[in-house]
């Protein structure tokens, strides 16, 4: 190692500290600015009408995005319903039954690849499969596209959380004569349930902010989502079309919707963190 004087090393260290501090400040400032913009412009759009009325055409005031809020809840809920049981069971297989098998290794690789698929590709795939073939855009197709994104995340987190459960617990249960499925359900899953819930909540949070998969599947609608077999209103596609429009009142509503999604995602993530803390 080259010999450098203590003084020069100290000066260099001080210099690097300044650089670090200012770079950190710059980055943090930019991010804080974004947050502040969302909050200020978004909160300005919040009004009772925003939460309860249907959209009005440009130029007609008093519109809201109540249908889009309901639509997002329904589509995300349906996606969760599809992906959570399947993801949980697949994760259970990987953690409990498939630790050594080659099949499990292949499934693990497939899960990793699926996690890396860009969300817009998921939308393209589901459009080809469900929209072009059935003849119309639908909330179902949107839910399937979101479920496709959630699935590998849930599989991975389930496997990770279950692997954290000590083998001794399983062996104790089996030694008592409990059938394997009950060991898994009542001992393993139960002791990992906080981590599992966190994984599920994080997957849901991530997916509720996605726009690209819904662009070609559930499209959008100015009406209440009465049946999901139709183009279904949702917040993210609404934000996309409203934000790109020149109409001021639509742009304001886009910020409001953006803030709403942010709050929802943050609330969900916070719940997840609280669960994990309470472990």
């Amino acid at each position, binding site marked *: 190692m080259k010999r450098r004087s203590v003084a020069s090393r100290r000066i260099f260290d001080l210099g690097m500290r300044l650089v670090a501090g200012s770079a950190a400040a710059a980055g943090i400032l930019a991010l804080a600015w974004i947050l502040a913009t969302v909050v200020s412009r978004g909160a300005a759009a919040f009004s009772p009408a925003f939460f309860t009325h249907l959209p*009005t*055409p*440009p*130029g*007609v005031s008093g519109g809201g995005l109540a249908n889009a809020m309901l639509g997002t809840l*329904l589509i995300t*809920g*349906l996606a969760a*319903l599809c992906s959570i049981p399947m993801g949980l069971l697949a994760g259970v297989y990987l953690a409990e039954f498939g630790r050594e098998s080659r099949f499990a290794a292949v499934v693990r690789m497939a899960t990793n690849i699926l996690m890396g698929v860009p969300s817009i590709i998921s939308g393209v795939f589901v459009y080809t499969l469900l*929209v*072009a073939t*059935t*003849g*119309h*855009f*639908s*909330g*179902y197709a949107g839910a399937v596209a979101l479920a496709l994104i959630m699935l590998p995340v849930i599989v991975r987190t389930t496997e990770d959380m279950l692997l954290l459960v000590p083998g001794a617990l399983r062996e104790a249960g089996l030694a008592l004569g409990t059938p394997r499925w009950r060991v898994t359900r009542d001992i393993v899953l139960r002791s990992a349930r906080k981590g599992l819930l966190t994984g599920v909540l994080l997957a849901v949070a991530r997916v509720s902010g996605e726009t690209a998969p819904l662009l070609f599947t559930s*499209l*959008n*609608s*100015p*009406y209440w*989502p*009465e*049946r*999901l*077999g*139709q*183009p279904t209103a949702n917040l993210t596609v609404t934000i996309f*079309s409203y934000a*790109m*429009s*020149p*109409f001021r009142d639509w742009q304001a509503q886009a910020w409001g919707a953006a803030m709403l999604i942010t709050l929802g995602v943050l609330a969900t993530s916070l719940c997840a963190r609280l669960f994990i803390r309470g472990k």
Partner: protein
Amino acid sequence: MKKLSALSVALIVGLSAGVVSAADPATINGAGASFPFPIYSQWAYKYEQTTGVKLNYQSIGSGGGITQIKAKTVDFGASDAPLKAEELNLAGLVQFPMVIGGVVPVVNLQGIASGKIQLTPSLLADIFLGKVKRWDDPALKAENAGVNLPAKEIVVVHRSDGSGTTWIFTNYLDKVSPEWHGKVGTDKAVSWPAGVGGKGNEGVAAFVQQAEGTIGYVEYAYAVQNKLATVQLRNRAGKYVPPSIASFQAAAAGADWKGTPGFSLVLTDQMGDGSWPITGASFILVQKEQGDGARARAMLTFFDWCLRNGAAQAEKLDYVPPPAGVIDLVEATWKSEVRTAGKAVWP
């Protein structure tokens, strides 16, 4: 926790209990051109208030409208680029006009009011070809002697999606500029020599609104609704005209609707002292063979309402409604062409 999740599952399943994924009979779905979107959305709104029938129109561009109606994913498509009779027959579609409007160039130049800038056809083409690159170009200055043009680069804004507005605009440029004809041509999406792309009329208007030194082209209602500065164009008769409902009407006055199969008329570069050179009609496309007769009739009833009762709303947004004679021609076409199970749907 268990009860809550069971309840929410029941709620979701219950709400999505249109188990058969058939579309809701009460909502008519349409998609397509952003050109007529301002008036279609207002008509749908008014119609729902009067009759309770819902109409969901999504502005995705004329290209999208044609694709979706051919794929039968919507009940009707809307396009400003008229399909020729052969294409209509091949796809089994019926086409008819709903409104006439104008495509106007819009600019964003600080301190320069709407209608101040004057452009000749070749200047417009050269700007969009990227040959005239700056606002203080001598050719521009020659036509606009009294205007204080800034020393800035021109930023061209065009459409990034498949657009009937583009079709009308490029159709006009194709007619007036041989270089445009050779280099670019007419279509809903072309290989633009210069500029930035915006999605929909909305996207172009938004870009022009936000950035200085831009020039784009939008349907007139977008320029008015968003207070964008328009330009005057020199028409075929050699006169400079600003865009207005009167200038669109003048251009549409000489149209021969009866003699054109499929109503696929082009209204650009028309004669007349007061004619706006880039006028165009916006069309609706429906399938000839309708699976659901009641649904088809409900859809045609809506269009009939718009054609007969929507004129006031259309004119407020500076769209020209089709004249009364055309309405009768259109409905005669419905009667003869739109069928379900062998029987006519209309009246």
